[in-house]
Structure formats: structure tokens, C-alpha cells
């Protein structure tokens, strides 16, 4: 390692520490303090460590609402990811492999899905018309609609790296089109599928605004919305708020730490051939 590499490495580490680690330490320290101490928002260590008490209090708040929120968020995330992977992979595969005049039209829709900002009120109106407003499956469909464009682009780019000979070999072997997809192509798309699962699950699990608009109701609460429990106009329990932040941050953080190599692999694998 040259001196220059060492210095740039150290500077990068220092920046990453300031941007990512210090806020986390701040949240962790303040989640371990009493309400009065946290209100000062200082970096000082707590006089009395109340980590466990705060944790229990957050979990028990509003009749164990956090557990319900975890359940709802997991249902929405798992449901949406399943549909995103299946439909994203299918559409990406067909768009890449079958050349037809419709491809451009479909591709236009995909790009429109990426570019056009979601309009909240009309969406609620549509959801109400379909009887999907304030339902978990309605929320799942919303997340699928928002994420599908990106997934299709990733899958389509990846399919172009899979040799067409494999499809043809399977066809000669007697595979029907759906068997070619499910038995040959889908297993080979594992890297990009992991990428989609990780990126989208973090996005959907961390989503605050969409559940806020489309999923009102106490019984429909998601983890990000539980942050409101400890913040109001007149009373703010910042220590519990920080503890809540800690609890809702940990699952996506773990996913990210364990899968970050695959994310990069899947993102770049499709980049060689467009």
C-alpha cells in the first residue's frame, strides 16, 4: 500500500465514521438515558444506564403496539418482495428475450413508473374504489407498483448476461416457456434476486410516508409510524424515541451488513452487457 493510498483510506474511514457511526452512537447513548437527560441532547454518557428499562417501555407502549407494527411491516415487506421478484424477473426476462413491437411500449411504462411522482390523493381514490384502502394487501400492491420499474430494469440487464443458448437447450430438451423460466433462468438470476430482495426490503421496511398516507388506522401501524408514539406537540419522550429508532433500524442494518457484497455483485453483473 502506498502512502497516498493509506492517507486516502484513512480520510475515507474518518468521513464514514462521522457520517454513519457517530449518529448511531448518539442514538444508542441517548436511548440509554432517562427522559430528562435525553432532553438535553448531549453526547455525554448517561448518569444511569436505562437501556433495558427503555427497551421494555418502548415494546410495551400502547398495548405492545411495536410488536403489531413489526408484524405488519414484515407482512408488507415479504408480500411485496415476493411479488416484485416474481413479476420483475418475468417482465425483465420477456422484455430482454422476446423482440416485439410491444417492447418499446412496455419499456415506456416501466420508465414512466420510475419517473412519474406518485400522486397521493388519486391513489387513495383508486384504492377506495377497489376496496383496498386501509388494507395490508392494498399497501403491498402500492409498494409493488412503486418498486417494480427499478426491479424490471435490474432483472432485464441481468438476463442479457445469461446466454440464449441455455434457453434453446432447455427448449430442445422439451421445456415449456414457463419451465425455461422457472427451472433454468430464475435459478441463474440468484445474484440479482438477492440484490432486489435486500434493496427493496430495506426500502419497504423503512418506508414512512406511504404507510402514513395509504394505511391509516391503529391496527395497521407499521414500524416507522411507531416513532410518532413518543413525539407530540406537548410531550416528547426523546429517550424512548431514540430507543424506538434503534429498534427499527437494527433489522435493515443486519440485512445490509450480511448481504452488502451480493448487492454490489447483482448491481454490477448486469452492467457488462446492456
Amino acid at each position, binding site marked *: 500500500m502506498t502512502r497516498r493510498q493509506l492517507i486516502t483510506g484513512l480520510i475515507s474511514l474518518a468521513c464514514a465514521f462521522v457520517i454513519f457511526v457517530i449518529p448511531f452512537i448518539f442514538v444508542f447513548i441517548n436511548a440509554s438515558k432517562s427522559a430528562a437527560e435525553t432532553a438535553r441532547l448531549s453526547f455525554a454518557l448517561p448518569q444511569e444506564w436505562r437501556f433495558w428499562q427503555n427497551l421494555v417501555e418502548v415494546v410495551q407502549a400502547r398495548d405492545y403496539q411495536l410488536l403489531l407494527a413489526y408484524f405488519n411491516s414484515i407482512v408488507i415487506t415479504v408480500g411485496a418482495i415476493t411479488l416484485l421478484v416474481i413479476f420483475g424477473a418475468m417482465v425483465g426476462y420477456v422484455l430482454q428475450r422476446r423482440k416485439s413491437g410491444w417492447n418499446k411500449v412496455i419499456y415506456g411504462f416501466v420508465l414512466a413508473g420510475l419517473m412519474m411522482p406518485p400522486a397521493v390523493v388519486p391513489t387513495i381514490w383508486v384504492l377506495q374504489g377497489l376496496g383496498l384502502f386501509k388494507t395490508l394487501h392494498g399497501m403491498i400492491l402500492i409498494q409493488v407498483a412503486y418498486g417494480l420499474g427499478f426491479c424490471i430494469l435490474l432483472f432485464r440487464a441481468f438476463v442479457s448476461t445469461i*446466454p440464449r*443458448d*441455455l434457453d*434453446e*437447450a*432447455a*427448449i*430442445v*430438451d*422439451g*421445456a415449456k416457456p414457463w*419451465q425455461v423460466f422457472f*427451472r*433454468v433462468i430464475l*435459478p*441463474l438470476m*440468484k445474484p440479482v434476486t438477492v440484490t432486489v430482495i435486500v434493496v427493496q426490503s430495506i426500502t419497504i421496511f423503512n418506508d414512512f410516508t406511504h404507510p402514513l398516507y395509504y394505511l391509516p388506522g391503529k391496527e395497521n401501524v407499521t414500524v416507522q409510524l411507531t416513532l410518532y408514539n413518543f413525539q407530540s406537540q406537548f410531550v416528547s419522550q426523546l429517550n424512548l424515541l431514540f430507543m424506538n429508532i434503534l429498534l427499527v433500524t437494527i433489522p435493515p442494518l443486519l440485512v445490509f451488513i450480511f448481504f452488502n457484497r451480493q448487492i454490489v455483485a447483482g448491481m454490477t453483473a448486469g452492467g457488462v452487457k446492456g
Partner: protein
Amino acid sequence: MAQVVLKNVKKSFGAVEVIKGVDLTIESGEFCVFVGPSGCGKSTLLRMISGLEEQTSGTIEIDGKDVSNAEPSKRGIAMVFQSYALYPHLTVRDNIGFGLSLARTPKPEIKRRVEETAEILQLGPLLDRKPKELSGGQRQRVAIGRSIVRNPKVFLFDEPLSNLDAALRSQMRIELTDLHANLGTTMIYVTHDQVEAMTMADKIVVLNGGVIEQVGSPMDLYERPATPFVAGFIGSPKMNLYEGKVAEAMGCATYGIRPEHVVISDAEGQWTGRVRHVERLGADTIVHLEVPDLGPLVARVEGSRTFEPGQQVKATPMAEREFRH
């Protein structure tokens, strides 16, 4: 075993006609090689027989049945691809058994047939490996195994040896020839390598620009080429071909003589030329001459003879071996 009959098969991609009407009969049990330069339509023709490509017009019959519009899997064919096209996520065993499992063959039977095939191709110890753990030659054998296991009526090979090194290629040529002798199945083989065509084929089909130039046995094509293209394509080094005044002087439109049919002597001969370049191959020596009356002339002589660049020599064509068109 099955006869393959193509009747006036044509194929166009948009406005470009790549196969301009092919009529061909491949007899049952024959090893037929399609050979020709890149872009001559040989792979397209093979893909039309396989059903992966649809013909624009004409009919294809396999074993007496018109399969022109049948699915690839209903034609009784198996295909070996240039890239092997092994499924990377499956083991050798699953790769070979894939077609059978799609056909819902009972598991014990799949196991038995895969193991039989593995034995024929000496793949037994490799059955539980993934394709990436195999060498090029082993992958090729797995690809062939995947074809054999389905007991097809016709085997189709699309340049299967072009990704192998020279030594392995010559070994695989022998293995494929043995396989054909053992199975006795009709095989259609596409290559641009005329050595493969000459060494393996019962029948060679020379294609050029989407039409058949000539069909015949390897020695037929070598000794009696029907067109200057076939004369130039078959044989290595290629035949010396002359047009224009040289050919007119010989009383034809195209005059040709193979390098091995040119006799080089120091004393006397029909043409006098200067040695430009010498390629010593061991058993043979290829001599490139510059002959004022003809232009460049290539001759093949015994490896023991030596020549120096710039040396003046005499060259004479063997009279009964000349090609006139």
C-alpha cells in the same frame, strides 16, 4: 435412426434471404457435415432442422414425418451447442437428466439412463460436479451426454469443437466418430473447419451464400469439386486457383491445382518461380513461390526437402490432378 429430408427450404431475416432454397436428403444413420465460411447459412439451416428457427418456406421431414411446424422437442432431435449450454446451477447428473425429468420420467429410470450414458462417455466420477468444475473436453462430453440420454432420432451438432484447443479437438473428433459408429444414429454436424468435415463425414454439404455448392463424400469433394468455391474450400493448404488470362491459356474459366499436386524440381518443369516463403511442418514443407507466368503458387513437398527464400525452382502440375472449370 431417421432420414432427414429438406424440400426447397428458404429463410429470410427481414429483407435478407440467408437460405435461398435448399433441397437435401440425409440418409438414415449418416454422418452429414454442413461446411462453409462464416455467414453461409449453415447454422441457420441446422437451427431450422432443430425447430429453433422457423423456415420462411419449404418443408422439413424427419423419419418420414413433416415436422416443419413442430416444436423442437417433438421432432426427435437433440442438439449440442457450440457453447455447450450446460445449465450452470445443475450438477452433471441433473444436466444429463434434465430432459428426462421434464418428460416426467420416473426417477429410478432417470438414474439408470443417466448412469448408462455416463458410462458410455466416461463421465461416471464427474456426475456430482457442477459444469464450472469441469474442463472444456469434459463439458463437451456432458453436452453430448445430455443429447444421448434422450435417444433422439437425429443428433445436431453446432460447431461443438470450436472452443477446444487443437489437441483436444482432434481427440474429440475421434470420440465423436466412435460414438457415431456405436450408436448408428443420423448426425448432422455444422463446422467451418474443413478438416473436421473431411475426417468425420460420410457426406459433406458445402454451403456458400445460402445455397448448396456441392454434396458428396469427402474424397468426392476433394477429387471432383464441382465449383471453384468447393475446390478452394476443401483441402489444406487451399488449392491454387487462377482466373483470367492464366485460365484462358489453360482453356478454361478457372484453373486450379492443389499444393500437393505440384512437383518441385531444380532441373526442369513447366513453370519457373522464386521461393518467397517456406513453412516447415515436419512431415511436410509448404513452399510459397512467386511464378511470373501465374502469380503466387503454393506447393507441398516432403518435409526432408529444404529450400531457401529467393531460390529459383521449377514447378510442374500433375496432369491428371488439374482442376478446370
